[in-house]
């Protein structure tokens, strides 16, 4: 008999429309094995997803420290002693070459050069020059690779930070962390794959905007979006049971929910119901894992010697750096930290030392800590902003103080771990720290290189969207910067 006809006879036999009856199963359904249906459930929690890597990854995990606002490379890493003789002289047109400027300074009558007021010292085997306001970095130049020849396309924060995180100046695409989550999957069943923390800066004179769109999953499935790990209140939104609900009460209520959902599943056989049961269980496990993760009181005093006492204070960069290490230990795949207030349009002297004091010691501590725990080889640590800053001064200029506008044509980043070389310097800029003279590395090259270390050929690591094979590095060719890889 054809199914429709069979159905018709069933309908005639049973009065489905009768009041009060609920979802009576048909004869065919009685013989149904629920487990077969459950197997059809698709769920991230139902076993860890398979990784999509093209080759063996060098880096298993990533900690990305983004300095929001764009640190001034010539005051920190890109040493330009020649500029001392150029104080208050105009930036030669032959250097600027008609490059577009932000409207912050495009109307300025002059572009007077502001040499860095800071003393630099050549450090380590690599002989990297480092500014006096980064004393801890001086001690670890041989642990990292510096790229002094980073460059980007955007000259304002919003498009530049979006490009840095998602490979495109226009919003709406997945960020590096989301791509990593999509491609590599989870390393644990109790914590999110991709975590974002926003650290507070001590000084807040020129804090820039960041927004949840920076850690969105774009066109990738939603579960790859970054989970915001907060420094005040619940670390993960709604992770804590309501006041007065003990773990036992919660367990009892979940047992009830699950049992009732199982009954519902037996009637409707919707695979999503089984998925939901699994997700509720994962939520419960997550509730137990997070307090363990955030219990930094259990850290020995030596930890705080390394990271500084600021690490005890929730929300400081030092605190997020310490948490990042604890997350990596527990199998969080990608930790993104934002530290704000690097947008030094004015008052470099008043602000930059505080910015450096926020991050210098904790960065050093994080790298040393990962190293001593044997985690650095598999954990890639990245430090950098969304662009650099101009050699000429924005606003007033004196020997003691000056301001610097946005500069896309060169800036410095450093990386370590995850198969990157250590104690190496790549790239050179001209005397003005304005144009790159050797080994330029575009943002997309940086992305290609990071993906390479995670086990992906950036050209083949794609996701079909709008009929196109979308990729992090976009349509313009990008290259893996092998010079910085070991």
């Amino acid at each position, binding site marked *: 008999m*054809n199914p*429709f006809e069979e*159905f018709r006879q069933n309908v005639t036999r049973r009065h*489905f*429309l009768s*009041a009060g009856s*609920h*979802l009576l199963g*048909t004869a065919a359904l009685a013989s*149904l094995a629920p487990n077969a*249906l459950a197997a059809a459930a698709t769920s991230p929690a139902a076993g860890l997803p398979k990784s999509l890597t093209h080759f063996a990854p060098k880096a298993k995990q990533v900690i990305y420290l983004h300095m929001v606002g764009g640190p001034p490379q010539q005051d920190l890493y890109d040493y330009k002693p020649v500029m001392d003789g150029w104080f208050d002289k105009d930036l030669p047109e032959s250097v600027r070459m008609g490059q577009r400027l*932000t*409207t*912050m300074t495009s109307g*300025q*009558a002059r572009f007077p050069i502001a040499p860095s007021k800071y003393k630099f010292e050549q450090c380590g085997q690599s002989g990297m020059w480092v500014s006096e306001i980064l004393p801890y970095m001086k001690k670890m130049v041989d642990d990292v690779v510096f790229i002094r020849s980073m460059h980007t396309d955007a000259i304002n924060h919003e498009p530049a930070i979006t490009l840095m995180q998602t490979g495109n100046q226009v919003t709406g695409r997945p960020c590096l962390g989301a791509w990593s989550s999509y491609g590599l999957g989870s390393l644990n069943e109790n914590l999110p794959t991709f975590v974002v923390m*926003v650290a507070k800066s001590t000084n807040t*004179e020129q*804090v820039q*905007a*960041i927004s949840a*769109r920076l850690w969105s999953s774009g066109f990738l499935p*939603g579960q790859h979006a970054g989970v915001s790990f907060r420094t*005040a*209140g619940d670390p993960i*939104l*709604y992770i*804590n*049971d*309501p*006041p*007065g609900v003990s773990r*036992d*009460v919660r367990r009892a*209520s979940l047992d009830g*929910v699950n049992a*009732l*959902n199982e*009954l519902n*599943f037996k*009637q*409707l*056989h919707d695979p*999503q119901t089984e998925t*939901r*049961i699994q*997700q509720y269980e994962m*939520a419960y496990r997550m509730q137990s894992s997070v307090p363990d993760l955030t219990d930094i009181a259990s850290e020995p005093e030596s930890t705080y010697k390394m990271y500084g006492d600021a690490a005890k204070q929730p929300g400081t960069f030092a605190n997020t750096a310490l948490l990042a290490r604890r997350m990596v230990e527990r199998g969080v795949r990608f930790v993104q930290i934002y530290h704000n207030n690097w947008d030094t349009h*004015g*008052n470099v002297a008043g602000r930059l030392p505080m910015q450096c004091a926020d991050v210098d010691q904790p960065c050093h501590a994080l790298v040393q800590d990962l190293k001593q725990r044997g985690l650095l080889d598999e954990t890639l640590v990245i430090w950098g902003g969304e662009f650099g800053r101009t050699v000429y001064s*924005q*606003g*007033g*200029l004196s020997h003691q103080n000056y*301001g610097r506008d*946005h500069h896309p044509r060169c800036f410095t980043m450093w990386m370590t771990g995850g198969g990157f070389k250590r104690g190496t310097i790549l790239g050179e800029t001209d005397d003005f720290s304005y144009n790159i003279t050797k080994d330029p590395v575009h943002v997309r090259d940086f992305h290609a290189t990071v993906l390479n270390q995670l086990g992906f050929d950036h050209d083949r690591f794609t996701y*079909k969207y*709008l*009929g*196109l094979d979308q990729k992090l590095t976009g349509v313009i060719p990008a290259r893996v910067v092998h010079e910085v890889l070991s």
Partner: protein
Amino acid sequence: MRQPQLVKIVARKFRASIALLSTVACCASAQSAELPLQYNRDIHPILLENCFSCHGADSASRQADLRLDRREVAVDKKAIKPGDPDASEMIRRILSDDADEQMPPPVTKKKLTSAEKQTLARWIKEGANYEPHWSLIAPVRSPVPKIGNSWWVRNPIDSFVAARLEEAGLAPAPEADRRTLCRRVSLDLTGLPPKPELVEEFANDNDSDAYEHLVDKLLSSPKWGEHRGRYWLDAARYADTHGIHFDNYREMWSYRDWVIKAFNANMPFDEFTIENLAGDLLPNATLDQRLGSGFNRCNITTNEGGAIPEEYAVLYTRDRVETTSKVWMGLTAGCAVCHDHKFDPLSQKEFYQLAAFFNNTTQSPMDGNIQNTPPIVTVPLAADEKRWSEVAKEIPVAKGVMDARRNEARPAFDEWLAKAKPEDVAAEVPTADLDFLAPLDDDSNTIHYTLLGKPQTAKLPKTVEWRPGHVSAKAAYLNQGAVLTDKTVGDYDAKQPFSYAAWVKLPANDASGSVLARMDDRRDYRGWDMWVEGRRIGGHFIDSWPQNAMKIMTRDQLPADQWVHVAITYDGGSKAAGVHIFINGQPQPTNVIADALTGTLKNSVPFKIGQRNTTSPMSGATIQDVRVYSRQLSESEVASLAKLSLSAVVATPPEKRNEADLNSLYDWWLTTIDDSYRALSKNHETLVREQADIQARSTSGYVMQDKPDKAVAYILNRGEYDQRKDEVAPATPAFLPSFADDLPRNRLGLAKWLLRPENPLTARVTVNRFWSEVFGNGLVKTAGDFGVTGDLPCNQELLDWLAVDFRESGWDIKRLFKMMVMSATYRQSSITTPEKLEKDGENRLLSRGPRFRMDAEMVRDYALSASGLLSEKIGGPSVKPYQPPGVWEAVAMIGSNTRDYKQDTGDALYRRSMYTFWKRAAPPASMDVFNAPTREVCTMVRERTNTPLQALVTLNDPQFVEAARHLAQQAIEARQNTDRRINFIADRLIGRSLHPEELTIVRDTLKKFEAHYNASPDDASKLVTDGESKSDAKVPVPQLAAWTMVTNELMNLDEVLNK
């Protein structure tokens, strides 16, 4: 869940290979072997996946000039010889083993299966027939299929669905029981669960039209407009902030109200389209029609310092084209920004021709970080509407009388001037309550100034230098530091009226800083200042920034490198309306950025010229004649200050006075000396103030407004704003019906063009979107992409029938929804079977009723409604319900007026979720977890994930816990018996009573909860005080706690979270 593209492609390939195998095997399915291959179904997917990126529509990436998407080109280039695969170069190349010849080239890593190769060969043998892309052929009303099981059919939808089910050998699911159906249709038509009484009434209504009556009742509910409007706001990308950088408040909820009203009035979709796209361009457009055009003002905007306006103007236009294309045409036009669309026949030129329709706006690319970015309209309170229109007429009349006086008073002025002495002008400069005066014309190392009438001196700081002045020879040039510091000046309370003024010359950059300030920037910025930002000037009046502060800035930029006189007066009323900014004596239009001062301005830091106490130096500006008065100066007094140099005009011999100077002097004379003009001016001012007061009480509407010029756009190389190529005029793409000559070449014409019967897309895309709201997926799953890369319709005949029927019905939305929910298809139960899971896993064939997790807003509204907490109010400003602390603060800039989330109280906590304040940089936290979009761009399909973070929301979020407690309390009060209490709750949450097996489970957990809360009364009190509303003191706390947890348990059922 998103279906991986791969699965889709495999499925298509599978279809194709089945067809092929059957020819080989020549067995049971011989029938399909006789049917010729269909290009759209069988061939196009193969070519799309493997060939078109190099041999398709995009001219930039095309290889060897060969297009395989155009038959004539493919034949001309000898790639295809129809009827003769062996003589076709394409077949030779795809079969070749030679790496240099093979297609697709090995380097592309694309590979054809042997089945695909054979399909292509067979297609060429059959004549290589092409078909236009399905969605580009205008839909015709498909004949309603004749099916075997017509007994099942309730309306034509069912015939189309049954035909597919019969084909697939599937039976429909039985009709859902009445309670389930009542809940489902209530959710679909109002977005809210039905009240238990309604369920009961319907369940017991034996009338044969009972269901139709229920549907009609729900369709006439005002909740209908809210629910439909909520979906539309995703497409319109509506939100309450600008989106980029400061992400400040944008006051445009009047558009949301307009949308709700339109759906409730069942405005036909053609009218709705026209008002959304071009309400402003309708002849004699009403306020309501103009408000509709807010659709194109919902896009994200910026005011980031340093941003290049043209770059953003291009981005906004681009967003408007993309949104319009997606919403009405289902086209992903964005691909053609940089190059010809790779797959759809949309060229880059055509993209910019569409852009030209939107490229003629009067809107400035920089939104000013203000809540009312022009062009806007005022939407007065109902009570003000009459006076609002009267005042608008009275003001020009009053102005006319003033002008008449100006015309006739010149002789009196000449008479005065003949006798005037320079001191007469100078004497008008106000001296009363002049607390502080610093001429800053010293040109020496000592600065002289007057403090409360007593002369003082100060040492010149190193950072300051003397430069040429304006009202005197020298002026102070500021460079990273203060000119003058004084502890006494300006320590005013917020209740103290005061005024401050100076002559300034600003540099030509967008830097910001304080010209004058008494401000403690280390302590919440308490104090006041004269502030420059992007060459606009204004002032802060701050207790603590930004929550307890005022900030007012001029709307227009000041000229660079020119002397201007700036004065700010304040009436001591702690309201932005009491602050006036004057440039050269003229009151300026201002933007109010903050207006929430309730505290004081008093602080313990000194007054400084040139910066705040420690930060924000105003570098590169020149300044002189700084004055601070401890009273509010009148407009004419300010005019006198600004005309200080006019004494020089009087001193000049008459024959040497020039016309411009004389006119300035005349203006001054009218406003200062001439009594009749002053009286008329006062009258005018009163009316202007009344208008301002009405405006202050009103809300605004963001609208579109075109410049009178001819609309044009430029083709942009790779989409770069600064790489203009050819200029283009507004036009529609060639692959769509032509743009009739009788249509205006503007947005209004575009809207009408979209609605023409020959347009193949609009009606289809629209019914598909409405269909997806009810059935969870569109008939075309990619609701925003009907192009060649989009999904094929799972039932095109049905889609086309619906599209034509909808258009011919006069675009009647309620009628369409009624037809959908009246169908047998809709009324099926959602029971599934292994067979259906296998053959119809995603329910595309509609072999069962729709069941899917509700959208974020519905999940929250459900809890509020079922518990009786939901506010019935419709429309109005956005509200801020419970949200964990720190969600906004974590991402927002300091100084953003959406940095601090100040939770509302009372009714505002319980409004429908569509009224929740939508900050784009941090969307409502609990809704974000349930896939609510950021509303940065148009969203046509929301994702529907199922994650642990969602479980945490419905288990732990106070708004759900409070709702549970509220419902628990009602159950306790209404019923005595445990089972009846449980069912009281179940009736409200799932519209039915529980089965015995279910009851046992709930009773068991209740016992555990009771044991815990009886033993731990502290826990019980903590739980029942979560949330703002108070619980009934008569209910014992441990009992209420235990029942709250029972309700929380039931609220988390899959059956509750799913429609």
